[in-house]
């Protein structure tokens, strides 16, 4: 039978959550020695489908065939026994254990002697071209190192079918290249790989075929070689989308926030921001580029009042904000909005509905001990309308919403408060292309209204197209603030590794 060659074949898989049909008769197949990309807008049911293959959910209808045989996958253990392994966006590792211990954790049978285990891990690394330090504890690892451990964990359990849910969302371009090299190696070794990503250039570079989901239905599969970015977008969204980002000219920019000699330490005492000085201007988008962990997070949180700086000042219309708590900032009447990187863990209350999340920063308004929910509900409803948010209702917990919709809720709330200053950290991470462009439009709209916008980003192409000025961070130091229109991607890349703007510009011109 022709089926034999498929590692996984999904036949008319259906999954319903309450009133939401997350998967509606989806067909998908992947062969050994092949990388399949799964593409679809936010909320189109990609994660749900993969969760069923890896035993986290059980389909309400349809059959999953593994190696040509119908399989009933009741738990992740069943999936593991069938050779299926999934790498989730949120890692499931024990922080205080070493890589090796995490890899062995939960495998049946006796604990192996460390020597044997190390050999096995090293063999696996060699076979697939992975790099890891088996003795390094997880808490000392970067995101991409952790991801490598997750992959090793899955391979150690004998997986030959690998599923990765948005693995590149948290990686730098260099780390992504490394990951892709590993995946190609696995393909060569005869594994089947399914990868979810919203970045179309990644889809084109890594996959052999692309399966497209649209609103919970499968919308066909194409050979990667036969498509390009705009074709993929069209297939996914259902219409042609212009892939250009507007950059209106800033109108009389004025300094609104001045950071002077700001030094910030992390909890463990290391220096996160080292003597940083720059200014943020109204009516302009200031991009912040840098390798992950160069101090972007601390920069945002210090401005937002969540971290106390060790030294330096943050001047807002001549007033020093350094060391003020968020509540004090609100009381001083400073209208600042912050869209943090960790949306559900910091920006929103995951278990509450949209209405209660709208209240988060305004609930203290109004006299008396009671909260007034009516305006919040009205605001939630208007946001649903305005931003096309897909949700079961404004009272349904935001945790149940798909990534893109969660971001729309957060960004929508922050913009709705009419800020003078809007700080956004990785606002399009995990968003599909359509939603990403919606976010760019929203930010531009704010800019035109005269808001000072800070955009922390990772995609250099976007930074170069969207922002007016770009600030480059390297190890907590500012290596330069440059005009986005006059700089190239390569020059930014060099500055990210520590070369100063001056050097880079001369080099570029010379």
């Amino acid at each position, binding site marked *: 039978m022709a089926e034999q060659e498929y590692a996984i074949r999904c036949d*008319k898989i259906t999954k319903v959550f309450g009133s939401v049909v997350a998967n509606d008769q989806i067909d998908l197949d992947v062969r050994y020695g092949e990388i399949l990309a799964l593409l679809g807008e936010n909320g189109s049911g990609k994660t749900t489908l993969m969760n069923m293959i890896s035993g986290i959910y059980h389909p309400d209808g349809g059959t999953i065939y593994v190696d040509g045989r119908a399989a*009933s996958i*009741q738990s992740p253990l069943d999936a593991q026994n069938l*050779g299926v392994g999934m790498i989730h966006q949120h890692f499931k590792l024990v922080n205080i254990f070493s890589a090796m211990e995490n890899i062995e954790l939960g495998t049946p049978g006796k604990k192996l002697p460390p020597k044997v285990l190390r050999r096995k891990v090293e063999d696996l690394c060699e076979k697939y071209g992975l790099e890891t330090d088996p003795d390094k504890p997880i808490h000392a690892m970067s995101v991409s190192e952790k991801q490598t451990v997750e992959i090793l964990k899955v391979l150690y359990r004998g997986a030959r079918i690998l599923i990765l849910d948005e693995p590149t969302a948290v990686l730098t371009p260099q780390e992504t290249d490394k990951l892709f090299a590993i995946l190609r190696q696995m393909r060569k070794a005869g594994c089947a790989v399914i990868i979810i990503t919203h970045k179309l250039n990644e889809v084109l570079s890594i996959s052999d075929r692309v399966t497209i989901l649209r609103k919970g239905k499968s919308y066909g599969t194409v050979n990667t070689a036969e498509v390009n970015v705009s074709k993929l977008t069209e297939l996914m969204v259902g219409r042609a989308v212009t892939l250009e980002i507007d950059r209106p000219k800033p109108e009389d920019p004025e300094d609104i926030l001045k950071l002077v000699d700001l030094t910030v330490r992390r909890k463990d005492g290391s220096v996160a921001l080292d003597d940083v000085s720059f200014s943020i201007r109204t009516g302009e988008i200031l991009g912040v580029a840098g390798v992950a962990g160069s101090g972007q997070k601390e920069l945002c949180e210090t401005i937002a009042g969540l971290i106390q700086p060790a030294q330096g000042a943050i001047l807002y219309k001549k007033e020093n904000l350094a060391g003020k*708590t*968020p509540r004090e900032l609100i009381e001083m009447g400073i209208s600042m909005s912050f869209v*943090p990187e960790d949306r559900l863990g910091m920006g929103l*209350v995951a278990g*509450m509905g949209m209405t209660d999340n709208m209240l988060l920063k305004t609930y203290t308004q109004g006299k008396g001990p009671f909260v007034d929910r009516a305006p919040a509900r009205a605001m939630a409803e208007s946001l649903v309308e305005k931003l096309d948010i897909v949700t079961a209702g404004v009272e349904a917990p935001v945790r149940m919403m798909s990534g893109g919709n969660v971001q729309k809720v957060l960004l929508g709330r922050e913009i709705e408060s009419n800020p003078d200053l809007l700080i956004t950290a990785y606002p399009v991470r995990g968003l599909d292309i359509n939603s990403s462009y919606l976010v760019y439009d929203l930010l531009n709209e704010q800019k035109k209204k005269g808001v000072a916008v800070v955009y922390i980003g990772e995609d250099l192409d976007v930074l170069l197209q969207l922002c007016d000025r770009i600030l480059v961070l390297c190890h907590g130091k500012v290596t330069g603030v440059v005009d986005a229109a006059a700089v190239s991607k390569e020059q930014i890349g060099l500055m990210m590794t520590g070369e100063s703007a001056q050097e880079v510009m001369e080099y570029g011109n010379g």
Partner: protein
Amino acid sequence: MGTAKKEPLLRVVKHAELSTRQSIGLRVLAVVLALAVGGLFIALIGYNPFEIYATIVSGCFRSPMAIQATVKFCIPMCISALGVTLAFKMRFWNIGGEGQLIMGAVFASFFALFCSGMPHLLLLAVMFIAGFVGGGLWGLIPAACREKWGTNETLFTLMLNYIALYIVTFLRDGPWRDPEAAGFNKIARFAPKAMLDKVFGVHAGWIVMLILVVLVFLYLKKTKQGYEIGVVGESRDTARYAGINVRRVVLRTMFLSGGIAGIGGMVQATGSDITLSAGVAGGVGFTGIIIAWLAQLNPFVALIVSFAFSILVKGSSVVQSAYGLSTDCADILQGIILFFIMAMEFFIRYKLVFRGHREKLPVKTAADTDAASGEKEAEEK
């Protein structure tokens, strides 16, 4: 790869979130099952289960006196459930309701014993406040230590239960001992002025309970402070981000949580026991945890669940006197019911899969879908 490992006979599998209706259905099923197994137990020891169950229910409602007694059992259970509800909403695992209740009773008793010169209503008001403050402080200690040094609140609140208990025995055997008491040491009976008045034959604690149910409900659902509790419980980072002073919310909420339990202690001592005894809480603080949990932290449901529990308590004491069934049997019956209800909480989240179940199910579907896909393939050709 599917290496043929021996599959265990039974496995625990987590299933998707159930709808509200399904989970309520499961809970009702648990009660029915518990009654069935309890009935089996009664039959085994030679009684007619139907008669016994009928006696339990009729025993609680056969006379106004019986109803009053049932309500009396309900009061401290419900109030302590309300107390822990506040803390649990904040995901602060306060299992010290017992100790907080005792300390409320201790503080209130001080005024009952030594300041009984005050006018009746003033004295009651002072005792009420004292009970609230006593319980509140007992709740504040573990909260403050956790905020300051990151101590484990579960262990800490648990330990404080025993300390509170020994404070009462110390007072009983020492400074507060009633010199006129013959035999065992005990604390003197309160003066009539320090007794809670009766309304419809039950001490006024039931009114306090009803008011608290409504207040706690409104507090959690409608007030700014209640909203803060919800946010802190979900994520401290989000709370900080929103400008909430997390430490203050934790301390305030634990003070209220302990304070409500303390009111329960005051009401029990002055309304029911008319003295301070080591048995003032009598495990009610722990029952309150179960009640709050079963009620899913909803105050109104907690009231209903408390009442159901008090029927069981009162009813089994009637059975005991009517049939000579020992208290232990009544306790076993209670245990069985609790066991089933708690077990059902497990099944609301997980299910068991038997070995072999897996092979059976897919073979059938595989055949079906094979045929179907065969047809489809034929069509395509």
